[in-house]
């Protein structure tokens, strides 16, 4: 069994079966993470390059560790945003990296479509680690893996995604993935951050938290980008928390066994209260571990796809 494409550009491009394969494979890799020797020789001799045009510690570290656990050699290549506009073009940079013998290029960039662009221009496997406000597929895969661990099956679950949907690649990838696996998805947040045409994605739109959280199985809170404040999307983080902050009181409207996910890093007291973040319904720390397993699975599966 293999994936059909040698690149992971987005969830949009995956079949439900592809998603299931990644999740099943990730389960095997999670076992490895519990061992004393957490490394397997599967991709010995392969080279992975992290090409990050946006600062990111956790995603980059997660990919780096996942790659190392598979015995690849990993190179981190950080490019400052200023050189995106001036200096070497993205294509030239990527071609140079490929010429160094990279088998995988993991790319994060502030412009949507970057991973797609590189995949079109390179022979190496391209993995999208977040492109602008388009997609962040491995985050969605690890979120689904986490949900599956907790709930067994995705089909039929009620999932609420709360926050800045408009600018969130995490939300987009999750919406596509959850819909493909048969979950019901609803979006909750300020209307400035959930444009009405999102409804065409086949999701419910809610402005009111209490109404939106009613009887949900899963709550995903999104990080509120502090730079959105003062841009007219919402008046202040205080008011945001008042209207859309995830609190124990609000969670009481959801199902009793609800779990709470957050892609991190969290803004406590803005989108989530500490008693929720640290509460027993929170699987936020589990998500980090699962991220490793899922990224190992993705690297492993993509390595089996012949160009």
């Amino acid at each position, binding site marked *: 069994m293999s994936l059909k494409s040698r690149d992971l550009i987005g969830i949009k491009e995956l079949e439900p079966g592809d998603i299931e394969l990644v999740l099943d494979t990730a389960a095997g890799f999670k076992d490895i993470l519990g061992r004393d020797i957490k490394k397997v020789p599967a991709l010995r001799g392969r080279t992975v390059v992290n090409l990050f045009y946006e600062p990111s510690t956790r995603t980059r570290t997660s990919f780096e560790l996942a790659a190392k656990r598979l015995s690849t050699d990993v190179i981190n290549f950080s490019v400052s945003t200023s050189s995106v506009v001036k200096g070497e073009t993205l294509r030239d940079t990527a071609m140079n990296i490929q010429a160094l013998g990279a088998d995988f290029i993991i790319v994060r960039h*502030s412009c949507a479509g970057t991973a797609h*662009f590189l995949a079109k221009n390179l022979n190496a496997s391209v993995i999208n680690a977040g492109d602008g406000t388009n997609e962040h597929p491995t985050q969605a895969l690890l979120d689904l893996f986490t949900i599956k661990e907790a709930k067994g099956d995705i089909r039929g679950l009620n999932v609420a995604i709360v926050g800045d949907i408009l600018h969130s690649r995490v939300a987009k990838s999750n919406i596509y993935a959850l819909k493909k696996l048969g979950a019901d998805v609803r979006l909750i947040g300020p209307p400035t951050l959930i444009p009405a045409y999102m409804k065409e994605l086949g999701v419910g739109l809610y402005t009111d938290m209490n109404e939106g959280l009613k009887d949900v199985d899963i709550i995903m809170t999104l990080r509120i980008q502090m730079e959105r404040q003062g841009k007219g999307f919402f008046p202040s983080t205080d008011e945001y928390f008042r209207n859309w902050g995830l609190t124990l009181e609000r969670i009481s409207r959801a199902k009793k066994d609800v779990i709470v996910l957050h892609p991190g890093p969290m803004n406590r007291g803005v989108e989530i209260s500490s008693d929720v973040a640290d509460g027993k319904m929170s699987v936020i720390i589990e998500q980090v571990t699962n991220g490793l397993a899922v990224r190992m699975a993705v690297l492993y599966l993509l390595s089996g796809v012949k160009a």
Partner: protein
Amino acid sequence: MKLLIKNGHVIDPSQGIDETADILIEDGKIKEVLRRKEPAGGMKENESGIKTQERGVINAAGLIVMPGLVDMHVHLREPGFEYKETIKTGTGAAIRGGITSVCCMPNTDPVNDNSSITQFILKKAAMEGSCNIYPVGCITKGQKGRELAEMTMMYEAGCVAFSDDGRPVADSLMMRRALEYSRVFDAPIISHCEDLMLAARGVMNEGLLSALLGLKGIPAQAEEIMVARDIALAELTGGRLHLAHVSTKGSVELIRAAKKRGVAAVSAETCPHYFSITEEAVRGYNTNAKVNPPLRGRADVEAIKKGLADGTIDVIVTDHAPHHMDEKVREFDLAPPGISGLETSVGLSMKLVDEGVLTLKQLVGKMALNPAGIVGIRKGSMKPGYDADICIIDPEREYRVDAAGFSSKGRNTPFDKWDLKGMPVITICKGVVNELS
């Protein structure tokens, strides 16, 4: 020097001609259109193609002979961006597209906001241009939207219209002043309608597709708000307003209502890409489909066609915006907007005739006579005494667009590899015959 174009299907709305006729050219001018009731005897009626063996005679049987096309919205990029296009290559591309007169937009470097730049362009045009060039001057100094540029002086130097194209005049008071002041010299103010704040640095049409691609959207209202504003200002001032590159259904409706109200001094243009393709062309982050205003939805395309058919939209322009390949082969957000349009305009517009949206005569009106009238140049007609600017089209000729073979330096087109029907085969500019292959 005499030249006779025989047996062509001559279309000249300025003289009400739409029939088989001969055209006699003498010393670079139209001498006369020889009309007749019956096809001339002895001529090989059905032989299409170009036959110039007979000295001074073009056999245009099976071909359409129309006034040389007038494209009142073209970016020639010179001075300043010669790597994208030059006056030489841009006018060469125009000739290939059957276009004999272009109005070149002022957003060069330096911008055409004073008469010395206008003179430079015209001098360069005289030396290297292969078609007629009519510069468009800036409305405001440096296209900054703060102070009026010296429009009268530019007008006297040869500018035929004024526009801050590429940049809207955001300040309504400034736009009012420009429209008022333009009455001094009777040239239109061409408005690039875009509310920049509302457009919020979007890169494509706003809607489900922009959400799916993760690209920032520009709502149709960003255009329509400015169309409404500028129509209101035209009513207030009595200035002549020409609305550039109309792309939305809402804009068409606003213009239609204005014309119905009798705001006589409002005219509008659209481009082949707004009636040929939708935002779907952006899928796959196709930077060649990135254009401003952005490609819109199916309903907008239909509305544009309807607007062309009922006369709401007067003109078809290309908004020819050539860019270097390196600028387009990159991140969608960072690629400059624009389509290289001169060499596909006829083929795409002929589809409107095929689909029954426009008659050939109406098409010639929108691509030659109307724009000439709006910018006030003696073009777009084959009346005796006019320059011999003629476009001959083979309406049956099918061909595949090959961007790599463009005369323009800009190969940025979403229509590459499209199969089109109807191709300019001869472009005559001031009596100079260009046979196109």
